[in-house]
């Protein structure tokens, strides 16, 4: 251990909620997107799943909202070290979308892509089983544009760069293909509990 002379740090947060190396951002919700925030109206938003699926499909805003609603209440973790506790997102479970397109048996991964062209790769197993959502609201309000509104992917058990803002679609694949940050040296999976920040962690 390399102790820093004279560094004590904040009072420690008790409890098992903080992954290694993370701190509690409190009420702050930092914005870290690398591109210009798009002006994307809900009426112009679409979400598509294609690739290795039985029935590729595109949903409009209204069609996506016609699916059963689902809420995530819990924590989110950003690779820049902040975590945010007790957030509440509303949307639709990704399972509801995937059940309709039916991924093939050979499907193992997905590339999530945004209306801005941002990409993030994910194992399919991280997108199923009630662990991923398409989120439309935050704290009961429409998701603000700088946080990915009108709709973002939400995969809260991985670092938040995986939760692509302004989500446009998923391409289902039988192999892993690095997305934007992953090509920039970030970890392929990004599990905060194992501190998988950068490639090699």
């Amino acid at each position: 251990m390399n102790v820093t002379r004279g560094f004590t740090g904040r009072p420690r947060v008790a409890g098992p909620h903080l992954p290694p190396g993370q701190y509690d951002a409190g009420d702050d919700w930092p914005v870290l997107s690398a591109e210009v925030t798009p002006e994307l109206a809900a009426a112009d938003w679409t979400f598509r799943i294609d690739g290795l699926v039985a029935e590729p499909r595109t949903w409009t805003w209204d069609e996506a909202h016609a699916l059963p609603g689902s809420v995530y209440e819990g924590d989110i973790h950003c690779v820049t070290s902040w975590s945010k506790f007790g957030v509440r997102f509303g949307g639709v479970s990704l399972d509801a979308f995937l059940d309709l397109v039916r991924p093939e048996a050979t499907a193992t991964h997905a590339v999530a892509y945004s209306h801005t062209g941002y990409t993030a790769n994910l194992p399919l197993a991280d997108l199923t089983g009630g662990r991923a959502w398409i989120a439309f609201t935050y704290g009961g309000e429409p998701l603000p544009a700088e946080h990915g509104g009108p709709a973002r992917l939400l995969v809260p058990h991985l670092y938040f760069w995986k939760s692509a803002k302004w989500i446009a679609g998923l391409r289902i694949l039988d192999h892993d293909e690095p997305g934007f940050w992953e090509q920039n040296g970030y970890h392929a999976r990004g599990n905060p509990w194992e501190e998988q920040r950068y490639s090699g962690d």
Partner: protein
Amino acid sequence: MTSQPFVPPTRFAVPGRIAVGEGTASVWQTATLTEIRRETPRAATFRFAVPDWAGHLPGQHLMLRLTARDGYVAQRHYSIASPPDDAGHIELTLDHVEGGEVSGWFHTVARPGDEVRVRGPLSGFFAWPGDRPALLLGAGSGVVPLMSMVRHHRARGLDVPLRLLVSARGPRELIYADEYGAETTPVFTRGAPEGVPVGRMSAAHVAPLLADAPPGGWEAYVCGSNGFAEHASRLLVAAGQPVDRIRIERFG
């Protein structure tokens, strides 16, 4: 399934500018503080010896870690202020954030000889190898990675066009004030010397630079708080800069 990599229907704004090496980012190294230079009442530059530093490109950042006696760690990202040619050394410039855990330690406790841990350089999308004309817009400590570009441009005697618009509350808050040359236009938001206008960065600053763009256009780099990044990137879009040539580093 073909082996063609998936290309999203929209061309992404900010493809990586450089290949990022595997491995260097996952190795923690000791950085020994060798010098502290005051820049403004709220900001200072911290110079470190990092003997095995792999080198970086202007615009890249690193992750820095402080460790308390009980093993508690605080980690933050910081842009690299120094140019790449400063072998074995890097410089960071930190704002003193009110109540800040890491910047507070640097501004009130740190002294030469202290050791911290760093890993990096990180991220390729904001890097500028000095190859394309670059238009830089920064505010506050957001000027830090942009200054690395200006210093690199100067140190190498590059003739590729480079322009910097830097926003600060007033002349006293302008980081690196003595170092700017003809490439830079400061914008003062709260107070300015006699005869210099006061106000937010505006179309009047950005439009002439875009009207006078070099052949092939500018690669725009925007850095600062999220509020500034939103404002400056909208100015660029309004002035005709293509969104796929605007790279934004937000400090959160």
